[in-house]
């Protein structure tokens, strides 16, 4: 459309366009906010979970937050952990494109894109002290430890305690209190 053509549009049309643009922005903003919160939560998990002794080489070795699959956080996670420490350990992010790329980490966020590989991932991570975090609805029932549940633009948490136990992870009661403890499906940890 030519510039003239734009001017030719009626005011009502302009209004709709602006609203749509704004709404889209808001939606994008809301979307951005959600992942900022999740990034913050991921960071906070590091404070409320106790890893077994062998999980860290020493008191100063970094706590690795891994992301498997598409990274939805953008810069949020990097911003959240920038310059911070958790339980005395510096925080680093490790990005793994596919399940088979997952290396050493303490927290692993399973991106929705990698959700299909989760079972396989779980088998590989069996009894390794990794806090698995996910978004999908049956994440914790399938053996994930913490799931982000977003409703009414609030992000709630679901936690699978037995999965945590299996991973030798101790979750602080405070975190448990702030979350819903959910039992896994039969046959799943």
């Amino acid at each position, binding site marked *: 459309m030519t510039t003239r053509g734009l001017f030719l549009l009626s005011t009502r049309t302009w209004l709709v366009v602006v609203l749509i643009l704004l709404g889209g922005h808001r939606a994008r903003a809301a979307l951005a906010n959600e992942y900022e919160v999740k990034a*913050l*939560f991921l960071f*906070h998990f590091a*404070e*409320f979970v106790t890893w077994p002794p062998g999980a860290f080489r020493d008191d100063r070795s970094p706590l690795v937050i891994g992301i498997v699959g598409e990274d939805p956080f953008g810069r949020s996670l990097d911003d959240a952990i920038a310059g911070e*420490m958790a339980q005395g350990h510096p925080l680093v992010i490790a990005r793994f494109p596919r399940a088979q790329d997952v290396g050493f980490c303490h927290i692993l966020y399973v991106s929705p894109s990698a959700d299909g590989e989760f079972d396989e991932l779980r088998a590989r991570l069996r009894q390794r002290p990794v806090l698995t975090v996910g978004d999908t609805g049956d994440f914790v029932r399938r053996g994930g430890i913490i799931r982000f549940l977003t409703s009414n633009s609030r992000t709630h948490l679901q936690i699978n305690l037995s999965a945590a136990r299996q991973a030798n992870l101790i979750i*602080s009661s405070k*975190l448990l209190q702030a979350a819903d403890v959910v039992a896994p499906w039969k046959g799943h940890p």
Partner: protein
Amino acid sequence: MSVRGKPSVIRRRLIWVIVLTSTVVVVLTCSAFFSYQVVTSRRSMLAHATTLARAIAANSTAALAFENPTDAEEVLAAFKADPTVEFAALIGTDGTVFARYPRRVAIIVPTPAPAEGVHFYGRKVVAWIPVAQNRHLQLGTLYFSAETTELYDALLVYGSVSVLILVLAMTIAYVIGRALQRQISEPILELAQVAAAVSERQDYGLRVATVGDGELGQLTTTFNDMLAHIAEQTRSLTISEGRHRMLFENSPLPMWVYDLASRRFLAVNAAATLGYGYSASEFLAMTIDEIRPASERPALAQDMAETPPTGIRTSPRLWQHLRKDGTTIVVEITSHDLRFGERPARLVLASDVTSRVHAEQEIRRLNQELEERVRQRTAQLEQANRELEAFSYSVSHDLRAPLRHVQGYVSMLQRAVEGQLPDRAKRYLKTINDASIEMGQLIDDLLEFSRMGRTEIRESTVALDHLVHECMPQVNVGSADRRIDWKIAPLPVVRGDPAMLRQVFVNLLSNAVKYTRHRDPALIELATAGTEAQRVICFIRDNGAGFDMQYAHKLFGVFQRLHRSDEFEGTGIGLATVRRIIGRHGGRIWAEGAVDKGATFYFTLALANPPPPDAPPLQ
């Protein structure tokens, strides 16, 4: 018991002291405890609140971290346990209230934010606690406010109890004080009473009942001793005063006391009233100026102005005083400064010496008269002497002439009628001749005597040995046929007129020769016999006829003879002359003798070289 019916000051004071002390103590104690209570209550409130806040803050980390308001509210619900908590809130990092307790309470987040921690804000406890899971990531803030009414209620109760205790304590203190103060106040009150009675009635016989040992006992004992002492002193003083009064009143000499400042008479005795003619009351209305004549007043003023020496003193000069009848008397003043009552005063003794003064004046006058008379008499005597001497000289001289005629014509007659006269006539002529010779001798002696009186002494040094030696020829005239033992000792050198002294020795030695005529041998001694008042004593001793000591006083008189002229010739002037000469030389002459036992004539002469006073006397 009180002094004169007025409430006792000391009792009140003692009770007041006890009550006040107790009150102060109780007040202080209660205040201390009260303050302590307040402080500890507040502190414990803060501590409690802090504990609560910290616990809840710790519990709310997850709720804040994971943005779970429900969970957060549940956590805050724990505040229900503390009924004092008004409200509580968890405030997110964005400043909004994340969760609140109670559920629907309105929370106003204070701006600016309060100080971190738990503090008192007015009457509330306010907590502002940061919530953080790890040290440096703050998730939010716990904010709550609690009331402190409970605390203040408790304090109020405590205060009321304290006041009650205080009142109780004061009452008890009062009761106990009242009972105990008696131990101190009673003796003191009694002491005060007795002291007042003593002072009022001057009764020193009163005493205070003693109260055993301690300071009060000592006080009462000492007080009693003092009273006894004062009583004793007063008695002695009264007696002494009485005696002094008596002495003063009965003194035969006028005495008075006058005030030094006003010069008024303060006291006079009977002798003063008699001596001056004023009565005692008249005296006491006068000053000391009024008993003096006007002429004396300046001298009095000056004397008063001078500072007198201390003690009893007699005035160096005599004063004139005026009696009532106007007559003046002369007095000698003896005075003594003292205190009469409270005033400085002077005690005076006035001795009337008028008659003595007059007597002295009379004596002086008489003395002067006497001296005048003596002077006159002496002049007269000297005049008479001079006339007598002149007369003697002229008479003697004039007598000589006719005598020469007589002697001349007698010898001429003798020659003219030699051989023609009968023996009787020859005897008559001889007698006339002898008599005229004697007369001539007498006249010569008289002339000599008068000359001795008139001529001046020519004083010089005379060696007596030499003088005597020169006299001997003249002395020995007519004694060639006699045996005379001369015993002449060494004689000193004297001061005197050589001619006169020669006359002395001639006279005395001649006398000795004469009056030893009937002795064979005649013993004549001439020597010295010591000194008398620095003059040498010479003597001439003979063993001749001597004299009766009864008539010694006549020896040296003019024309005095103790022997008849037919026994021993002589005119009787010789010794008078000697005495005159010796007298004019300042010496004295005296004689000792006995009838037929000889005589010794002593006389003194001034030595030319007098010996020092303590030298042994010349022998």
